[in-house]
């Protein structure tokens, strides 16, 4: 038979967590080697002194109340390292389990200090990684936006480019076929744009082109697509047109700006637009047919404005 009384200290010395045994009046009777390492306090230094002297953090009401409950009812108690950051020292995070242990005619209190410092370190590392990933992710999203902008929008004017036009043209044409509504396609050409460039310089010409794009965007509806189709050509896609009145509302807005003077870089510039429009299904079944028809109308308009 093993004499457990003499064997017990050897067992407790092997346990890989801080073990402290207190008498009922909270004096330390046992303090194992792990506890010595965690606190830098030797068993001989703390034996027979009250636990709050050995571990000053525990000198609080909640600890004393918990001890009373453990002694009176044997209810187990748990203090987490998260809510008690400096339970035993600044450098070690520990969870504390407290249980009543009966012996002979009295009770002792068993304290188990479980070192979770590594957990804290790993979770903190994990949070840093998550933070970095989240930062990288938002950078990527921003870059994606820039790439999309470059891929689908005209760099000079900021309106859609031909790639975006192609994407929406098919979509809107299919929608029109399904819904039975009309799809309008407006071809807009800036008259004498070469002369504007030659007279006022390319820099001013670029600004004029940007202003035309803005005028068209402001004159159209939210779902209409304004696209820079070529050097001085724009196409406006107008989905969901149920009557010609819908279209008139848009074209009236554009008409206001069709022939006007604008001031750019201090120059008074005469701006004039030629416009042609076609509609699905009346003028064609495909986008190419609609473009061709609108282009024809636009040239007729240009011709009229030159000779009218």
């Amino acid at each position, binding site marked *: 038979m093993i004499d457990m009384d003499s064997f017990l200290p050897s067992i407790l010395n092997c346990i890989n967590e801080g073990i402290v045994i207190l008498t009922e009046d909270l004096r330390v009777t046992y303090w194992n080697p792990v506890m010595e390492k965690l606190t830098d306090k030797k068993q001989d230094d703390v034996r027979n002194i009250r636990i709050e002297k050995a571990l000053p953090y525990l000198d609080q009401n909640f600890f004393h109340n918990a001890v009373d409950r453990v002694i009176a*009812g*044997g209810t187990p108690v*748990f203090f*987490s*390292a998260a809510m008690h950051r400096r339970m035993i020292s600044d450098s070690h995070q520990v969870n504390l389990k407290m249980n009543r242990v009966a012996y002979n005619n009295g009770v002792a209190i068993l304290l188990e200090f479980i070192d*979770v410092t590594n957990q804290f370190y790993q*979770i903190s590392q994990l949070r840093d990684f998550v933070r970095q990933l989240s930062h990288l992710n938002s950078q990527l999203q921003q870059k994606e936006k820039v790439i999309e902008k470059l891929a689908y929008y005209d760099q000079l004017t900021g309106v859609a480019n031909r790639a975006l036009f192609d994407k929406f043209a098919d979509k809107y044409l299919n929608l029109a076929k399904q819904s039975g509504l009309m799809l309008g396609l407006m071809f807009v050409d800036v008259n004498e744009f070469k002369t504007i460039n030659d007279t006022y310089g390319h820099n001013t010409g670029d600004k004029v082109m940007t202003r035309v794009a803005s005028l068209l965007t402001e004159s159209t509806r939210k779902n209409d697509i304004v696209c820079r189709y070529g050097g001085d050509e724009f196409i406006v896609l107008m989905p969901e047109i149920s009557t010609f009145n819908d279209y008139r509302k848009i074209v009236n807005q554009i008409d206001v700006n069709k022939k006007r003077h604008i001031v750019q870089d201090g120059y008074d510039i005469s701006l004039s637009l030629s416009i042609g429009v076609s509609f699905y299904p009346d003028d064609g079944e495909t986008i190419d047919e609609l473009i061709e028809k609108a282009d024809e109308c636009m040239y007729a308009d240009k011709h009229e404005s030159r000779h009218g």
Partner: protein
Amino acid sequence: MTGKVNREDILKELFNIGVGQAAGTLSEIIDKKIILDVPDVKILNVELGKAELDKFLSQVAEGAVMVSSISFDRQLEGTVSLIFPADKMHQFIDLCLHEDRGEEASMEFTDIDFDTVKEIGNIILNAIIGELSNTVNIPVEYTLPEVNVLNSAKADLFVSDEAYHLVLMMYITFNIEGTHIDGAIVINMTLKSLDDILNTIDKMYDGR
């Protein structure tokens, strides 16, 4: 003083004394004012208990919960579970730990989170069972709570199907600095255990 309503009122009073003490302890530990309240206690048979709990799980917790539970035996036998809606727990834990994880809040629960809830559960469940045990003078023995996260919790997990069991169902509201969290406490115990408690309560209050 044998009416069911009055028994429920007495239990409600007992549990509120318990959670009041738990709130005091938690406030001292986290250094913030925390208010706990048990507005209602219901004694239900297993079937009604499950229906009531399923209502809470679907309406308040939307199925995902964090549960802190203990089993007790000896003279009183049963289990008690403290159930929180999981989606509020990151915020609740942050408030307790004086932290603000912000966009990291979508992270799964860590061991630190589990330990925090284990301590909170221990304080509240100790207070509730302790108050009950002290009042009726029946000792109860149990271990530290186990903490689990359940993604689609159903009442079956908390309420035993055995016919001789009853359910004590109560809601518990937490208020920390204006943040409000609704939880539930489910005590599932044998009919005999609850009878022992209620008979002792009847005797105590009839004799006063």
